[in-house]
């Protein structure tokens, strides 16, 4: 892969962006996180409420609660209460249409849960299996990234980059992305986002999951009280899951606006196209989308 810009065609050249282990572990993560989210929402549906503290029955109302009310005419109304404020969420939260067309009282709707019908034991089987997949994959990734220097070389921002965060935020808001040789490096916001996911969100969600286990609580009785108690751990687990969903939404958005096919190919085959002068990495002349010269 040493086709320099001078020998490249008008559309630039391909270089190897992602190593095989990173590509494999990325897609294993996609599968595991998707199933963990969907089976987790099925588990949540068994008790569609979140509490703060050591127990669910403390005399204080839950932080979040989804339930169904029946109107005098027999219609079900889905109600979601967040910090005391009530919302009618019929059709999505609290009450939604089952796959067979019947209205039913359930937290999250069928199309976002695994299994789609009410089946707590099966959801737990899926969840705990893919929790192992996530943890083993994550540990393999950490070992690989440390050993191959992927972490130090590609993910750790240097001082100059940290100073340019303001500029990077402005660039992201204007949907401007580096082109040419600069596109070979992750930008500083991207690096920070990945580092937060790797070292904060995923460890947090795993730890809060373990914190819900009554058996593992006996390793060091009371450790879960450090985050407020078992029900607080359950709440953190739920919040961390949606923060990961938020990360994925932004991640996919950035992939789409900075060259969807180019990025997707690089995460499948490893090869990423760097545009030449007058072209950016989208394979389009830059003047067509008002990019930087």
């Amino acid at each position, binding site marked *: 892969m040493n086709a320099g810009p001078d020998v490249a065609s008008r559309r630039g050249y391909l270089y190897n962006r992602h190593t095989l282990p990173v590509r494999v572990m990325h897609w294993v993560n996609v599968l595991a996180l998707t199933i963990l989210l969907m089976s987790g929402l099925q588990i949540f549906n068994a008790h569609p409420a979140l*509490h703060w503290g050591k*127990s*669910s029955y*403390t005399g204080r109302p839950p932080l979040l609660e989804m339930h169904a009310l029946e109107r005098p005419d027999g219609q079900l109304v889905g109600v979601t209460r967040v910090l005391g404020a009530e919302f009618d969420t019929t059709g999505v939260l609290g009450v939604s249409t089952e796959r067979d067309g019947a209205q039913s009282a359930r937290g999250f709707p069928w199309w976002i849960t695994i299994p789609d019908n009410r089946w707590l*034991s099966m959801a*737990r*089987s899926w969840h705990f299996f893919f929790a192992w997949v996530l943890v083993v994959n994550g540990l393999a990734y950490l070992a690989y990234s440390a050993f191959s220097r992927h972490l130090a070389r590609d993910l750790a921002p240097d001082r100059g980059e940290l100073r340019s965060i303001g500029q990077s935020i402005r660039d992201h808001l204007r949907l401007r992305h580096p082109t040419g040789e600069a596109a070979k490096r992750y930008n500083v916001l991207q690096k920070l986002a990945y580092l937060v996911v790797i070292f904060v969100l995923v460890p947090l969600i795993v730890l809060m999951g373990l914190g819900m286990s009554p058996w*593992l*609580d006996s390793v060091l009785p009371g450790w879960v009280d450090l985050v407020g108690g078992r029900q607080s751990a359950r709440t953190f687990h739920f919040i961390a899951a949606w923060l990961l969903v938020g990360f994925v939404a932004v991640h996919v958005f950035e992939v789409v606006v900075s060259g969807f*096919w180019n990025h997707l190919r690089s995460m499948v085959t490893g090869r990423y196209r760097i545009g030449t002068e007058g072209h950016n990495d989208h394979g389009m002349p830059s003047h067509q989308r008002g990019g930087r010269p």
Partner: protein
Amino acid sequence: MTDATNPRRHFLARALGAAGALLVGGCERLSTSEWFPKVLGASETASEAVAKLVTSRRSMAQEFSAADLSPTFRSNGTAEPDSDLYRALAANAFADYRLEVGGLVARPLSLSLAELRALPSRTQITRHDCVEGWSAIGKWKGARLAALLEVARPKPEARYAVFRCADPMEEDGTHLYYESVDLEDAFHPQTILAYELNDAPLPVANGAPIRLRVERQLGYKHAKYVTDIELVASFAHIEGGKGGYWEDQGYQWFAGI
């Protein structure tokens, strides 16, 4: 924009679409298949092995203070057993209740409530974690199961204690609730046959007159309305063969996670 016709991109687009369809439709088919739940079950074996590895026989569940008590202790599952036998016992304040201890023991026992209360007891404020996700904190007092088993003396081949209960799980009065624990849990210091909740006799809604407390596991292990304890070498021949009413419905036998 020749890229849209690039065959590799077509392939990727199709692969993505297929992955989505596979996820939605496939999970359902996998869940109801014969083989896939067994694959998923492999992780349960791993979870139990690791849980046992990082704890010891005497690792204690967290205990709480009176300030942490839940205002009312939630009743879940059976709130009042639909059985004439049970109603007759309850009507008489369980004066005629006997706990039968048998199976692989040197000395089978039949104990009245008064005799159970005379056994060495333990009082503990613990958190009850339901498989559904909620927790409640209650103060339990009961006979230490270890003390009872020391009198009954399990035979060397005994591996599990099976608890049979008075509450039928079917409307026709069949399928009495049952549960089982291994001897490690049976002899654990916090494993008790509770007869008091929050300093009052155990209410019917919470399992009167006797409810098992096995504090490092989820709520469905804590059998209510216990009438018989049988020591066995294997529970494969009992009911669905999975060691408990909910286990027979697909829930994990090791309920520590």
